[in-house]
């Protein structure tokens, strides 16, 4: 399923050329798919809720923007450095916070998201305050031998975004299948039992928290580069909450969940061509219905439906 989505995403501009608006919208949604993958690892697989995750994306965005603007770094190194920076901040935040009980932890992540947002907005000398850091340069063309891949154009950047997103999904896939991922799943299902089996719960939580923050940071860097500005409004509390909604909408704990969630989150407004308030009301109602009837999101509902149909076939 993921492979298909990836190939389809990469081929889209070729199959349906001259759709600049669609390419814009899709690129922007990829910018939120990447942090959603990070949150999915944390929430869907490990069972830790973070309500301030876009704060880490912001750290990645600002770090990458500064490196590209001030130090003249290329896009990819800046993206990696931004992710690393977000991972380090995640580590520093996780050390005190991950020892807390679950309810306390959730509210502290909210506080962390707010603190980071306040800093983005007010540390004018570093982050440019409310205006953010404009003028992030377009990525330079990539040279592989004789091959020159232009990344500056809309379609070129779209392909770049697809590549980064695919990389995030590959990381998720590798983690979930690895022994590390199995330990995370055990922590989600029963922490005391995982510990009795030899899992150092705190160290594992810390590792996945930092990894998840780093992936979010990569997504933030991608967004900053696409919008050519690192602005606080992209990384505020509302965005963090939307991210949680995206992950749960798609299906937390499903590998394709973040992609499905973001796609619906972005596509729904395009389908429902009504006033934005009415649209958001519909979306809110959808979330309530989902909380009540399908806690595992759209993919969870699909799996349940398929199982029921198969059972009906058997009878």
């Amino acid at each position: 399923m993921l492979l298909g989505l990836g190939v389809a995403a990469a081929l889209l501009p070729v199959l349906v050329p001259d759709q600049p608006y669609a390419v814009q919208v899709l690129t922007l949604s990829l910018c939120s798919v990447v942090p959603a993958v990070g949150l999915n690892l944390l929430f869907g697989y490990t069972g830790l809720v973070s309500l301030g995750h876009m704060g880490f994306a912001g750290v990645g965005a600002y770090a990458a923007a500064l490196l590209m603007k001030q130090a003249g770094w290329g896009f990819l190194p800046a993206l990696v450095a931004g992710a690393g920076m977000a991972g380090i901040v995640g580590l520093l935040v996780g050390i005190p916070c991950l020892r807390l009980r679950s309810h306390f932890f959730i509210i502290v992540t909210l506080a962390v998201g707010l603190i980071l947002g306040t800093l983005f907005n007010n540390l004018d000398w570093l982050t440019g305050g409310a205006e953010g850091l404009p003028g992030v340069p377009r990525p330079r063309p990539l040279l592989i031998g004789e091959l020159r891949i232009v990344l500056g154009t809309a379609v070129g950047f779209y392909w770049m975004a697809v590549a980064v997103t695919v990389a995030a999904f590959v990381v998720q896939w590798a983690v979930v299948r690895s022994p590390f991922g199995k330990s995370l799943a055990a922590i989600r299902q029963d922490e005391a039992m995982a510990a009795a089996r030899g899992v150092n719960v705190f160290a594992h939580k810390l590792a996945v928290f930092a990894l998840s923050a780093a992936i979010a940071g990569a997504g933030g860097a991608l967004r900053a580069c696409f919008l050519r500005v690192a602005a606080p409004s992209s990384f505020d509390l509302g965005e963090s909450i939307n991210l949680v909604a995206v992950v749960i909408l798609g299906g937390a704990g499903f590998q394709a969940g973040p992609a499905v969630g973001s796609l619906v989150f972005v596509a729904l407004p395009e389908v429902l061509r009504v006033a934005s308030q009415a649209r958001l009301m519909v979306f809110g109602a959808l979330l309530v219905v989902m909380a009540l009837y399908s806690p595992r999101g759209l993919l969870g509902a699909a799996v349940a439906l398929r199982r029921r149909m198969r059972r009906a076939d058997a009878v």
Partner: protein
Amino acid sequence: MAFLEQALNGLMMGSIYALFAVGMVLVFGVMRVLNFAHGVIFMAGGYMCHAVMTHVVAFYPLALLLSAAGGAVIGAVLERLVFRRLRESLPMQIVASLGLILMVQNGVLLLFGPEAVQISVPAMRTVVPLGPLGVTLQQVLIVVVVGVAMAGLHLFLTRSRLGTAMRAASQDLQAARVVGINPDRVFALTFALASGLAALGGALLGPLFLVFPAMGDLPLLKGLTAIVLGGMGSVGGAVLGGLAIGVLEAESTLLAPTDYRDLVVFAVLILVLLVRPYGLFGRRLRGEP
């Protein structure tokens, strides 16, 4: 001088936070539900107060009572339709709350537009001389009404049969059921009571800071901070937490730019939890350091 003035301001905002936090902690204690949509009930209180004042009768005390009653009804409905079924799952409580916030805030935007509305009350125009400081009657009114509501809540919880049932349910639901307490009724009552208090808070703050769709967001964040500081389970802790946050953020403006006010509050929260991971008034669980 400035210190005293900010202390008074802080006390006023802190009593609003306390009113808000008490409702959240009651619901959490009895039902194990964290209702992030508590803020939109607060906001609804402001709008209900405005509606009563402009369309029914411009008598503020009556508008306060009606808003609180309206909030209680909304709360009872939400409990019955949504939260009663989500008692087991914290993430789904958050999702449902998000959905409710989106629905209500955008519904209000559609109905009343994005502009803030004003509630005009005489108490805003009356200045009470308090030594060298002058505060509006509305600010005094807020502290007094919250004080009366808290005292009433305390009496209700300790003296009345229903209040005792609520406390019993929060301590041990299984045991409460055995002695003949109907948990569903207690849940509905708790939610209604908490929501009534939140709506009352919105109606109290409305004349001071205008009424707008996002007016419940900050009280929500501060209320959450207050109940965590208080240890997530203690009503008294939530009240003290709310008051402390109000005073802290008001005094912080003397030392740092106003933009950093919220940052100071949340940084203090994290520092407190570093020292006491179970909050100021919380008890440690078995196996906790």
